[in-house]
């Protein structure tokens, strides 16, 4: 199972890295396959059957939003229908107009479902589309799923009766053909049952997967398939629609498998580690159920000592030159897990012995369930406390050195005045003392983080500022 998670994470990572190529590529592939399928199954306008033209149209579709792609494909279909007969094109245009005017006004982003539905029907995978739509889209996806069935059925009717529809010369024949097509569509019970079933499946899957129950997505997929089976059985009994469940059962199971694969990639959580948390603020009580995501542990994760070189470098960033034994004790148990790949080289402790690393990795696995992040957070807070303590010591040292420098400067200036013996000794020594104190005290009071302090008050302000920054950083972690 871990291997599967790793493969999934790699695929997701690959998609994230190259999505700017993969998305247009997928769009191009989908448009090309759909155009090719239209040309093969309809193909009455020979000019459109040219492969180069198909590639060009697919390329243009790549640059368009999905709703526009749907419009382009509808236009190609209408051109093929027009080449066959005007009445087929007229009825087709009426269907597409209703679809675009009524439905696409609300959900143009669901056009992909409408496009995929006829293709899936061709591959006998049309049971998978309502499951996927219910899992990945909202309840409004029921409409394009049903409309996809209607459009596919209309094209099937035209293709099956192409000989009858071709070349009607009289108006009477034309009207007869229109009536024929309308009758075939309106009185096609099987089509309405399938469209209704697909729409109902989307609604069932959507509402079940939104429930706050464990394995909601899996239950929703299974319930979707069950809904399809039950409606088909009911329709066979009451509407005389041949369900042919025996033929379709295999494809339904394949569709369920596809839905499970989608769940694995999109919503993969570990229900064994659900945490129920309760807390409250002034306005509300919160009852929170937290379900952790499942992800494969990074293969290059190594166990290192808390006070490794890298850790000490981090401490140095916070203004701590060296760590005393007392601070180590304050910081708690000395093992923490660090992703050495981020630093470009394995930590020395990890390289020292494989056994130690394995032990640490095992303890990491055990600790993961008990809240490793809390432990790391506690250690970081302890580190920050040590840092604050160190800062306070530095400030005290700075203050002491400032006082010392003032005394030394007074003595030096007095000696110089004695040699020259020309100025007023007391005034000169006072002025010189002030200047020397200012000049000498500054570097002594400058701390490691770059804050310059002159006197005790400013030292305190600087420490406060540092502490607020340190606190912020600690909160972030």
């Amino acid at each position, binding site marked *: 199972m871990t291997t599967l998670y790793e493969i999934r994470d790699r695929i997701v990572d690959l998609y994230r890295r190259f999505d700017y190529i993969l998305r247009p590529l997928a769009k191009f592939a989908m448009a090309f396959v759909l155009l090719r399928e239209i040309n093969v199954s309809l193909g009455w306008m020979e000019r459109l059957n040219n492969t180069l033209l198909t590639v060009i149209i697919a390329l243009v579709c790549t640059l368009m939003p999905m709703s526009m792609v749907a419009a382009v494909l509808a236009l190609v279909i209408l051109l093929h229908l027009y080449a066959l007969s005007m009445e087929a094109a007229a009825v087709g245009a*009426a269907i597409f*107009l209703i679809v675009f005017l009524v439905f696409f006004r609300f959900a143009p982003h669901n056009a992909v479902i409408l496009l995929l539905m006829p293709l899936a029907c061709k591959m006998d995978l049309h049971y998978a589309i309502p499951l996927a739509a219910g899992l990945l889209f909202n309840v409004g996806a029921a409409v394009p799923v049903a409309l996809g069935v209607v459009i596919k059925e209309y094209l099937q009717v035209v293709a099956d009766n192409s000989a009858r529809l071709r070349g009607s010369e009289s108006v009477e024949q034309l009207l007869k053909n*229109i009536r024929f097509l*309308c009758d075939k569509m309106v009185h096609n019970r099987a089509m309405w049952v399938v469209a209704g079933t697909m729409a109902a499946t989307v609604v069932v899957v959507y509402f079940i997967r939104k429930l706050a129950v464990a394995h909601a997505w899996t239950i929703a997929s299974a319930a979707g398939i069950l809904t399809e089976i039950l409606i088909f059985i009911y329709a066979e009994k009451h509407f005389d629609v041949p369900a042919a469940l025996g033929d379709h059962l295999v494809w339904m199971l394949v569709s369920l498998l596809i839905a499970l694969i989608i769940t694995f990639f999109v919503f993969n959580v570990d229900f064994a580690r659900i945490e129920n948390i309760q807390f409250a603020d002034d306005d509300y009580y919160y009852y929170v159920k937290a379900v952790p995501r499942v992800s494969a542990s990074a293969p290059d994760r190594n166990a290192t000592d808390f006070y490794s070189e890298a850790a000490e470098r981090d401490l140095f960033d916070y203004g701590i030159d060296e760590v005393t034994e007392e601070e180590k004790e304050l910081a708690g148990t000395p093992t923490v897990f660090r992703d050495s790949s981020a630093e470009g080289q394995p930590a020395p402790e990890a390289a020292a012995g494989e056994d130690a690393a394995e032990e640490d990795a095992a303890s990491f696995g055990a600790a993961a369930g008990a809240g490793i992040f809390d432990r790391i957070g506690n250690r970081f807070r302890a580190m920050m406390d040590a840092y604050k303590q160190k800062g306070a010591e530095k400030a005290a040292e700075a203050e002491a050195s400032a006082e010392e420098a003032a005394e030394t400067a007074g003595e030096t200036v007095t000696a110089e005045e004695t040699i020259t013996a020309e100025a007023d000794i007391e005034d000169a020594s006072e002025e010189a003392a002030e200047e020397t104190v200012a*000049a000498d005290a500054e570097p002594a009071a400058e701390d490691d983080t770059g804050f*310059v302090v002159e006197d005790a008050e400013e030292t305190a*302000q600087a420490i406060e*500022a540092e502490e607020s920054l340190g606190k912020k950083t600690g909160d972030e972690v």
Partner: protein
Amino acid sequence: MLNQDRIRTMTRLAIYEEEQSLRDEKVGGYFGNDYVFSQIMISVIAGTAAFAVVFGVYCVYHLDAFVLRLFDNTILEVIRRWAKYYAIFIAGYCAVTFFIYRARFRSAQSRIKKYRRDLEFMAEEYELYDKVNAEAETPEAEGTEETA
């Protein structure tokens, strides 16, 4: 040291600006009722056009009977019946439009509010950063002047 809160907020802002902000700006330019009303008007036009298509197909399908009714002066019955259908269809379509676009307006408003809150957070962060930098630089400058 990178400020992770700031990076998260900036990423969120960038994603929002890339994907949603243009659409939300259009919505945000309206009062709630005006926005929903304008969408209902568009729905009435689109719905009427779609209904006209259906009625056209019906007319062609029943062309013979339609012509006969025209001569019998019973065409008004048909028109009245279809007017009733039209009213029911448009009422339903407008109701759906009302609920969908009211929900969209509310979600756009909440996104805009969140976006502004993130912007304010960024402004505060930069203010704090400038303040700390200024405090760190001021004594140094004073010290240099005095030494000179």
